[in-house]
């Protein structure tokens, strides 16, 4: 009786594992399309990332900042005081 049950369990396990292997193999074997799509997406995102980084750097460039500052009406300071210089003493 026990032997019969063990045989049944083994048979079920063999059938189950074979089915599982078949399922996994099928899934993996047919995932190529999805893998290709993911890889393509990674490449596209990489390109987009590089493009955005270059655009960001361009927007933050000194020439751009200067141009935008001028449009906002900012001007270079003509007079600069150096506070590290000793102030002139009042003469008696």
């Amino acid at each position, binding site marked *: 009786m026990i032997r019969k049950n063990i045989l049944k369990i083994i048979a079920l396990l063999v059938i189950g594992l074979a089915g599982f292997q078949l399922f996994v*193999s099928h899934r*993996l*074997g047919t*995932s*190529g*399309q999805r*893998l*290709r799509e993911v890889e393509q997406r990674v490449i596209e995102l990489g*390109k*987009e990332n*590089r*493009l955005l*980084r*270059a655009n960001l*750097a*361009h927007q*933050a*460039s*000194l*020439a751009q900042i200067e141009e935008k500052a001028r449009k906002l009406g900012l001007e270079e300071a003509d007079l*600069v005081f*150096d506070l*590290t*210089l*000793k102030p002139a003493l009042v003469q008696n």
Partner: protein
Amino acid sequence: MSLETRCRILGTFFLLFFILVLSRLFYWQVIAAPRLSAQADDQHFVSMELPAQRGEIYSLDGFPLAANSEAFLLYASLPELKEEPYKIVESIVPFFAQEEEMASVSAMVRERLEREDLVWVPLKHRLNVLQKEKIEALGIEGLGFESEGVRAYPEASMAAQLLGFVGRDIDGQSKGYFGLEGYYDLELRGKSGWIRREKDPWGRPILVGEATLSPAKPGRGLVTTIDRAAQYLVEKKLEKGIEKYGAVSGTVIIMKPQTGAILAMASWPKFDQSEYWLYEQNLFPNPATSQSFEPGSIFKVLVTAAALDTQAVEAETQCDSCDGPRTIAEYKIETWDKKYYPDSTVADIIKHSDNVGMVFVAEKLGLDKLYDYLVSFGFDSITGIDLEGEMNPALRPKEDWRFIDLATASFGQGIAVTPLQMVKAVGALANRGKMIRPFVVKQVISSEKEIEIKPKLEKQVVSPVTARVITEMMIGAVEEGEAKWAKPKGLRVAGKTGTAQIPLAGHYDEEKTITSFIGFAPADEPEFVMLVILREPTSSPWGSETAAPLWFDISKELIKLWQISLGQ
């Protein structure tokens, strides 16, 4: 026919058939094996190159000066075109051609669209996203886009000659040329990888199939010593200075004397690295390292430093031959303003930029020692900076020097140097006599490690005392010399003006000059050593009226930028 004969015939037939099968098998398995194996591989495997990203170049503040970006190639699939070529040209060319080149670009595009021997033609490289979207919106059948990696320069043509550019080699591979791109090409380019894996009948990868991968190794990034803000303002000031003084070209170099770090290096005219092919090739080499010039009076400080260091003269030694022009062989040596100062001290000679006085100093020094110091200051070799294309103007062998050569070299004529050689030599005076090798890249970075590049001390070229004495003389030259009017208030500058004639087929040009100013500030604790050179200025031939004011103009901005304390 007997049975035996029939058996023989049958046996022979089987033997021949066997030989035929064998030879066919030999053909498939031995002779045609490599080809068939490759065909099988093609059917079962897909191989791809994994391109390596080129390393980026950063300024001192980590801002990308040369980055990687994407652009688009516009192409046409000729059999799919539905519209007439002239109509397509009219629609697309205005999106990427300038007004002045419209006709030539239109003709080129039309010629390609009308080709009958091709099915696929490239129309325009390096389109940006905006241009691509506008052309796409036209919905012209037969036109398409392919993305292509390009080098981007966020600060446009800033430091163009210093950075260099990326072009193609004879195999069509990306390659860096000139400047940093050329010098560090192997570091920057990285190593391409590849992948080979099994594919299904539709060309899709099989996840559980055989696969071999050699990952791409991206190029290393370079962090430079270039101060972006300083570089920006120097380029602007230089361009304005060239316009103001009517010069043909100009160069500015700023270096930290204690470390040799190049903080800014600008030349004008320059070129746009992203469209380098539109410019003359003579603009590509960096004039700061690849062009020589006769330095003129800025050289006097080095000759005097040599004379002081060997104790041939002292600061207070009086000149006994400074009361008039000197005649050496058939040559007459005069002062630049025809004024003579009898009994001048060596300090006065520097202050007045006295050519006759310098001949006196050089005589005291002697040819052997002068030559030794020229070698010691580095005028017989390249500076060793990490930029491609550095040149070394030959220093004539000592045996070829005559007395007149000693005399003219004392005031910087008859000897050729590069601007960077001058900065390195004067940098040693600013650094208590210690000569440091100039450098541009301070860090090489990759995903695995960061390599710090440390300043390199080369030698003690003059004693600290000599450096101090010559510094005082240079301060005197600025405070009381011809350029004192341009000096910013409160800043102690050690400097020297220079005006050199331009050699021209065995003689000197009567009118054209190269003007210069070299100096460091603040004189006591220098934050920078700077050289300004203007070639052939037309507003004035003198360094004191052209290069010196530009030097002081730039230094005023540097004081603000770096918040340099002016002290008392």
